[in-house]
């Protein structure tokens, strides 16, 4: 294709016509090694959707606003991203889904920082667009294989913990802030002794005036070991090693290891490179890595702008975390059931087929990359156990914070109530019972031999969070032909 001359400049915006520069190729068939990004674009009034898609392709790969002679020194055709398909979004006038293919050579192997600098580095502030959202990405196996993935994975985590066949049970220590190390450890001990598998630091528990991180680590590990001896069962606490610098994080992680912790925790806000560094450290030190998705809603929640959480899930599986908070559907935080099912599949399956009604736009092969254990937390309680297991399956950590620590008979009672509800529900599921229909009945029967569960069911029976989701899929399930 001939290069456009200066006089072909786009008249109004002062921008080159990207679609004429090779960034729009409707006949392009993505190569098996191409990466594909699917954006939701909302062009400014008067901007053509195809030109907008081409612009996104250009700005996220080789283009700048004008022609540079230095392009001629490169195999430019290869490095140009190609928008090859633009579809109007169902029921959303002015929005378009655009598919853009990127050559694998555009990316450094095994680097999320490099990947994201390319794909979301520049384009999100691009003027001709009102809004832009990265909905989904496809990664060829050749690219997936450049990542080590989760250091532990679901299967090995279960083997190490000797816990099979049921969701793991956790709780976040409350109150989030203000407890001394010694008091903090008390909450951990009571919860674990009562039947939790894990307790958890919250995202903003680091090292503050009320509790230095070493105090927390020391008391928590006393609690973990004591609870382990009291139950004969392996226990853990996600020690949050998030800190200001990598040096500090490594120091905290090393200390956690020296105390015998099985798991450490980081926050998403530490950044992709820090996450990958911690993943590498965990792999070298037999440690499970828990990721709290702190801050994600700033860019994942809005439907028209930002990055979908399903893309974050994919990036995090590549980057290599063992746990990630991925929604509860029924709890207090955002989460449409189908969209959430899409996240869970992405994290847990080896092959994830395209499923538009779940917001999954591509078939994705993970090439045996370890699986990530999703964590469901935020406003859930024992009375929802049948819904949680039906919606989320068994390879998930269920975290009941308030639902454990807020139990009127104490933390231990709260933990026991949740554990009994959990085991009774899995037991009934295995027996072939219909959880959604019989769930409340199953819980009631279990409560007959477990007073704490009885108390919990009565106390929280009416607590639900029914708000309309802001991130529901654009496609409704089509009735399957029989």
């Amino acid at each position, binding site marked *: 294709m001939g290069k456009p001359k200066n006089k072909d400049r786009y008249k109004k915006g002062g921008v080159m016509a990207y679609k004429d520069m090779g960034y729009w190729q409707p006949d392009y068939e993505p190569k098996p090694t191409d990466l594909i990004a699917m954006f939701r674009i909302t062009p400014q009034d008067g901007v053509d959707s195809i030109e907008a898609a081409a612009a996104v392709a250009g700005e996220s790969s080789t283009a700048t606003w004008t022609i540079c002679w230095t392009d001629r020194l490169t195999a430019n055709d290869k490095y140009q991203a190609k928008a090859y398909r633009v579809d109007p979004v169902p029921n959303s006038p002015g929005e378009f889904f655009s598919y853009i293919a990127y050559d694998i050579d555009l990316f450094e192997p095994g680097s999320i920082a490099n990947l994201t600098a390319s794909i979301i580095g520049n384009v999100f502030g691009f003027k001709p667009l009102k809004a832009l959202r990265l909905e989904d990405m496809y990664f060829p196996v050749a690219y997936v294989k450049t990542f080590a993935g989760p250091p532990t994975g679901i*299967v090995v985590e*279960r*083997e190490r913990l*000797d*816990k*099979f*066949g*049921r969701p793991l049970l956790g709780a976040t220590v409350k109150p989030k802030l203000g407890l001394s190390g010694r008091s903090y450890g008390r909450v951990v001990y009571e919860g674990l002794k009562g*039947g939790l598998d894990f307790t958890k630091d919250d995202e903003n528990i680091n090292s503050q005036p009320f509790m230095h991180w*070493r105090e927390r680590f*020391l008391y928590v*590990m*006393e609690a973990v*070991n*004591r609870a*382990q*001896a*009291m*139950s*004969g*069962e*392996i226990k853990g606490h996600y020690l949050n090693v998030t800190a200001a610098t990598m040096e500090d994080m490594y120091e905290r992680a090393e200390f956690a290891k*020296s*105390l*015998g912790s099985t798991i450490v925790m980081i926050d998403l806000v530490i950044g992709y490179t820090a996450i990958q560094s911690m993943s590498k450290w965990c792999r070298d030190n037999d440690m499970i890595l828990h990721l709290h998705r702190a801050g994600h809603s700033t860019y994942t929640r809005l439907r028209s702008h930002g990055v979908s959480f399903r893309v974050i899930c994919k990036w995090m599986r590549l980057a290599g975390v063992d746990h990630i908070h991925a929604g509860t559907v029924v709890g207090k935080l955002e989460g449409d059931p189908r969209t959430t099912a899409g996240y869970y599949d992405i994290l847990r399956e*080896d092959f994830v087929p395209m499923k538009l009604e779940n917001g999954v736009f591509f078939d994705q092969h993970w090439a*045996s990359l370890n*699986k990530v254990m999703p964590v469901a937390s935020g406003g859930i309680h024992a009375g929802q156990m049948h819904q949680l297991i039906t919606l989320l399956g068994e390879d998930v950590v269920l975290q009941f914070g308030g639902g454990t620590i807020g139990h009127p008979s104490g933390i231990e009672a709260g933990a*026991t109530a949740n*554990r*009994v509800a959990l*085991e*009774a529900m*899995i*037991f009934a599921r*295995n*027996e*072939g019972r219909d959880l959604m229909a019989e769930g409340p009945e199953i819980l009631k029967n*279990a409560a007959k*031999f*477990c007073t704490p569960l009885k108390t919990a069911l009565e106390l929280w029976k009416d607590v639900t969070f029914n708000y309309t989701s802001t991130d529901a899929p654009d496609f409704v399930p089509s009735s399957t032909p029989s």
Partner: protein
Amino acid sequence: MKITQGTFSFLPDLTDEQITKQIQYCIDNDWAVGIEFTNDPHPRNTYWEMWDLPMFDIRDAAGILYELNACRKVYGDNHYIRLSAFDNTHGWESIKLSFIVNRPKVEDPGFRLVRQEVDGRSIRYTTQAYSTDKPSSERYRD
């Protein structure tokens, strides 16, 4: 104390009828069920003794229960017995469900937590089962 290893330890001890249903669930999923027993319940004691090999190609839970009863006859009084179901599906290839089906007839004396003070305020923790203070042949007997 009651050791809470295994999937269903917070429920009342299972009846044979309940065990049968859980076994059938495993068999229907094409998992091989194995019987294992121990008198050393340390949480890191991974390898309990196998009562023969995990059982493949069984169609009905009665086949497994038949062996479980044979195992109980020999070890039931003073050992823990658990059933573990193995899934050979690619990407899992490990245990899918594991639950205790028999506990020693005498109360478990539990675990001792040994603390060794090391540098700073750090402590090295060691968990020891009181039952293993005795030789194997004398454990869980009055």
